[in-house]
């Protein structure tokens, strides 16, 4: 079984984001970039499927700038087999990403797509569901547990109020939530090995997909700032303050 894992290069989750003064976006110059944390979880899950003998090949694909090769290398060092980078200059919108992934799937014919539920830059939480729609495949989003057999996946999903379990027939799209697993750190030998693994370089035009934006970003602004309040000495003083605020 072949598993496809789409991974995105995003701002590192530890970085404090700054909005540009001209309100055109956030400042990404000289900022640490990493693999989207949910995509690390997805990669880990795919690699574990391979280690269990369920998957035979794990292919990672990224859509982004040249530097997204590093993101793919990270996944290869975790144990993925090969990568595909579709180079684009601008951040492609979720629908365009889904269309590109669909085109990759037409060539690769994976049985399963495991991906992140959300990229922590745009916080869209959309590509997986869109990809499943375009392919007419079933979807199981926000997965916290995954069991895969030859023709179906049983997925426990994190939902409001608790957990839900679904069976989806394969091929299917699964999106990973935080508690699906804890991604491994790549070992030095595996990082070295990953350098020799293949990354195919492509462009959006190779797949005939139009990635021009449909949403016009008019401005990006800072949210209203909260300022630090006061420290109170004890619980009694706190209760007094909260009563005078009218929230108790």
């Amino acid at each position, binding site marked *: 079984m072949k598993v496809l894992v789409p991974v995105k290069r995003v701002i590192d989750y530890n970085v404090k984001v700054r909005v540009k003064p001209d309100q055109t976006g956030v400042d990404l110059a000289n900022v640490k970039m990493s693999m989207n944390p949910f995509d690390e979880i997805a990669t880990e899950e795919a690699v574990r499927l391979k280690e269990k003998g369920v998957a035979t090949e794990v292919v990672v694909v990224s859509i982004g700038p040249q530097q997204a090769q590093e993101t793919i290398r990270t996944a290869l060092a975790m144990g993925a087999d090969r990568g595909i980078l579709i180079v684009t200059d601008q951040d492609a919108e979720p629908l365009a990403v889904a269309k590109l992934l669909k085109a990759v799937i037409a060539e690769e014919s994976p049985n399963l797509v495991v991906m992140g539920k959300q990229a922590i830059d745009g916080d869209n939480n959309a590509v997986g569901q869109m990809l499943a729609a375009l392919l007419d495949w079933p979807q199981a989003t926000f997965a916290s547990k995954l069991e895969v057999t030859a023709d179906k996946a049983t997925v426990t999903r994190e939902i409001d109020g*608790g957990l839900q379990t679904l069976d989806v027939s394969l091929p299917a799209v699964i999106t990973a939530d935080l508690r699906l697993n804890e991604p491994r750190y790549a070992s030095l030998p595996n990082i070295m090995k990953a350098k020799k693994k293949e990354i195919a370089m492509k462009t959006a035009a190779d797949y005939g997909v139009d990635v021009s934006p449909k949403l016009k970003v008019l401005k990006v602004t800072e949210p209203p700032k909260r300022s630090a309040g006061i420290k109170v000495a*004890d619980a009694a003083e706190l209760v007094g303050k909260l009563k005078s605020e009218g929230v108790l």
Partner: protein
Amino acid sequence: MAVLVIADHTNAALGEATAKVVAAAQKIGGDIDVLVAGQGAQGAADAAAKLDGVRKVLLAQSDALGHQLAEAVTDTVVGLAGGYDAILAPSTSAGKNFAPRIAAKLDVNQITDVIEIVSADTFVRPIYAGNALETVQSSDAKKVMTIRTTAFKAVGETGSATVEAVTAAGAAGREASFVGEEVVKSDRPELVGAKIVVSGGRAMGSAEEFHKVIEPLADKLGAAVGASRAAVDAGYAPNDYQVGQTGKVVAPDLYIAVGISGAIQHLAGMKDSKVIVAINKDADAPIFQVADYGIVGDYKTVVPELMTALG
């Protein structure tokens, strides 16, 4: 202009989120219809018919819709989409699951987590864990979006719209099927709509301690219980308690964070609360930078004192 609101519901009852999404729909303007896609969902449909500003309620029922499976909800909505310029769903786990699927079927983008409707085609949404707000204008023929319900005030319940049955999609060939659900029924208020939220963090150290410290305080205040990701990952609290960028977003009148450091991903889920209280033994914890009132101290002494002070 016509807007379709996809209801949040549990079949028997309408979820609180629906009235807030209708409020967002009113900002877009035009006729507003509410779709209740479920099974045995007459109760939810009747409740939706009472929401102010609703023209009619569309009730679609099938087994697959009973669990709001994304495939069935999508097929049902796509069948109705011709009559609407905008389709709105709440940013609940169900809404987030099916709305992008609907958008892709209609060949349009989805606009996630809308917090402000500027005009019928221009919307504001948070990005980067709420550290930036993006104003986007959509040129798509139909606007499909999820609404962050904490940003909108629920409409009233004095309406009397008609309820009309519409065609429901069933299970198609290649499908997802429902296996089971573990949903804990609680007497506490729902986290997302609660007036007061008490959240516990990694400092609790065990599930037992979380029960012993956080829950009684919440119950004394009539509050909902929340948690940080660290507390959930460690198994101190169930996953659906998680507040944050990738958990629930809350904006209560009062948010009390106990033993939570205040990572940006946590702040993303609670910084729009009216009053924030932090209890943390580390005076430099980032949570104090957003807290209106902070107590520096060990929760083990502060929380019991707070219980006493509350009487």
